[in-house]
């Protein structure tokens, strides 16, 4: 039987984008279709997840060309989880967009491009071919570039230039690495690469290729020396766009890194040490960067960088337990970071400012909403039993087992920095007395919106808050899932057999 259900989330997003394009001018229909479509996409992704959970990795050979010659799409537990999270965040942000994106933006194709971006993300998560991964990265960059510039405000254009230059550079580096790898092994299929790299004798060149991959993915996932494009671009577009960027876009880079450094370049001391150093510096620079910022969305941007460091740290320790922690952290982070940018957008919509100095008294005027916003904020710090707490246990335990005490120290430092930053934000935005922000003319405040639009802005925050509460209170489910993913990642033979049938003998 051909496993076509694996394609449904991907094809559905594409079809939805096309249908939305037919209603180019009619933004009202676009809003409704986008929300309804995202709901169906979530169901499809849930079905895919359930199938993979029950029956294991599914593969699909595009056009019937057998691996390793054709393009293979592979959905293992990690891919299925990420596709599910993409569709979940996609639904929440689609609801938020339907209320918060003004018609002037929607008229330039916001909704079709948004669904093309989701398609690109899903494609990147399910592909089993490294060149195809590059192609999906391009789809993501181009759509995200459009989303970043729609509206054409001056800061948006400025940030888009930085964003686009750096990401195109990353793509070129990534492409170069693919070319070298192809020259070495003569294949692009990731499972086949894994087999051939393991048998290859040219270790020096392979390590260099791994380094080039690391630089390429490092720019995309914003690790230490290559992160500066992120905080200067993520706060400029509308909050809905920032949320999808903050929640998923950098995670694609981390996903690619996890995939490549567990499947293709397996356990190498040099690479592990490099990853560890970079992880530590990323945690530091992200954490300290967040301390000095004043704009809420910019603080969140720096916190993204800080927490990317946690995931890289988990990857660098390379044990199954550490990978469990990294995967769990990624699941938690996608939901919470997406939600936080929505919270930031909500605060802006209510008060007309994102500056912590100007804001204040939020708790006094909106106590219920503040309690709702408290959930993602405190989940981010990881106050037990909220969702950020559990993955750190796995990370720390893995660190103690293999004696990475320095890394443990920095993970704790990163957590304390996050705590400090969030506490500062809480006192400034929610408790401090408001200084009175001048009302902007021509700005549609939250209070002026219709009830339906208000509901559509609160609802996605509530949905995502519920999901992060679920991750916190039913952590054993997510832990079980992460353990299974980590097991699959550290024992690659299952993945390779699913793609290639059986592991073929290699003639060196």
């Amino acid at each position, binding site marked *: 039987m051909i496993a076509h259900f694996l394609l449904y989330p991907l*094809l559905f997003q594409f079809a939805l984008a096309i249908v939305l*394009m037919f209603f180019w001018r009619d933004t009202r229909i676009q809003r409704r279709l986008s929300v309804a479509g995202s709901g169906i996409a979530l169901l499809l992704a849930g079905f895919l997840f359930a199938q993979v959970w029950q029956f294991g990795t599914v593969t699909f050979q595009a056009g019937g060309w057998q691996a390793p010659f054709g393009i293979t799409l592979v959905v293992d537990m990690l891919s299925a989880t990420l596709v599910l999270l993409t569709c979940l965040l996609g639904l929440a942000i689609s609801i938020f967009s339907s209320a918060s994106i003004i018609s002037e933006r929607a008229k330039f194709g916001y909704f079709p491009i948004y669904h093309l971006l989701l398609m690109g993300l899903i494609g990147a998560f399910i592909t089993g071919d490294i060149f195809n991964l590059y192609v999906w990265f391009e789809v993501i960059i181009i759509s995200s570039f459009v989303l970043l510039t729609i509206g054409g405000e001056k800061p948006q254009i400025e940030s888009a230039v930085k964003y686009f230059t750096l990401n195109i550079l990353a793509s070129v580096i990534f492409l170069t690495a693919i070319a070298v790898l192809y020259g070495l092994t003569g294949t692009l299929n990731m499972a086949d690469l894994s087999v051939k790299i393991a048998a290859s004798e040219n270790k020096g060149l392979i390590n260099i290729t791994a380094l080039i991959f690391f630089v390429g993915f490092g720019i995309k996932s914003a690790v230490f020396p290559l992160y500066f494009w992120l905080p200067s671009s993520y706060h400029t577009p509308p909050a809905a766009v920032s949320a999808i960027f903050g929640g998923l876009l950098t995670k694609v880079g981390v996903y690619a890194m996890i995939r490549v450094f567990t499947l293709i370049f397996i356990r190498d001391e040099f690479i592990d040490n490099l990853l560890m150093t970079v992880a530590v510096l990323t945690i530091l620079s992200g954490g300290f960067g967040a301390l000095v910022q004043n704009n809420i969305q910019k603080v969140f941007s720096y916190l993204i960088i800080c927490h990317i460091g946690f995931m890289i740290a988990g990857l660098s320790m390379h044990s199954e337990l550490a990978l469990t922690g990294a995967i769990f952290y990624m699941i938690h982070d996608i939901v919470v970071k997406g939600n936080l940018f929505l919270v930031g957008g909500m605060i802006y919509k209510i008060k007309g400012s994102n500056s912590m100095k100007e804001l204040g008294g939020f708790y006094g005027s909106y106590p219920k909403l503040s309690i709702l916003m408290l959930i993602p904020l405190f989940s981010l710090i990881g106050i037990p039993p909220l969702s950020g707490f559990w993955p750190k246990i796995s990370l720390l335990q893995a660190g103690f087992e293999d004696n990475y005490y320095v890394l443990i120290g920095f993970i704790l430092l990163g957590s304390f920095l996050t705590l400090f930053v969030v506490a500062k934000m809480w006192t400034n935005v929610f408790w401090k007395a408001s200084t009175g922000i001048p009302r902007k003319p021509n700005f549609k405040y939250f209070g002026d919106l219709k009830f339906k639009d208000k509901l559509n802005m609160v609802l996605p925050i509530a949905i995502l808050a519920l999901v992060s509460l679920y991750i916190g209170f039913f952590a054993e489910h997510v832990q079980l899932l992460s353990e299974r993913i980590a097991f699959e990642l550290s024992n690659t033979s299952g993945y390779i057999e699913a793609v290639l049938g059986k592991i073929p003998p290699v003639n060196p």
Partner: protein
Amino acid sequence: MKTIILRTASTYLLPLLLLFSVFILLRGHYLPGGGFIGGLIASIAFILHGSANGQENTKTLLRIHPGFLMPVGLTVAFFSGIAGMVLEGKEFMTGIWFKDPLPVIGMIGTPLFFDIGVYLVVVGVTLTIIMTISESS
């Protein structure tokens, strides 16, 4: 650029270039050519016509907004992908072909429809960009 020479020439060049673009589109499966290049040539035909006779005249010639061609082209490409899946129960993107070649056109199969989709998208995108720029300048 409204010289009488260019205007007269463009009236003849428009059908010629369009015909040429279709030729390039059809030979594209095994030989150099295909939807992308064909689409570019077709949009050059319209751009030339526009710069000789004014964009307004080209718009009335086109009848529809070129942006509309984008979703149409994407739809054609999308269905060429799922045709093998729906009609013959094979994998997504499997090419299905008619048994006998048609005169002039040659073999007809789903890859041709994919190319036609690309052709339409390229024409749509290029003309939308050019018309937007020339309107705002």
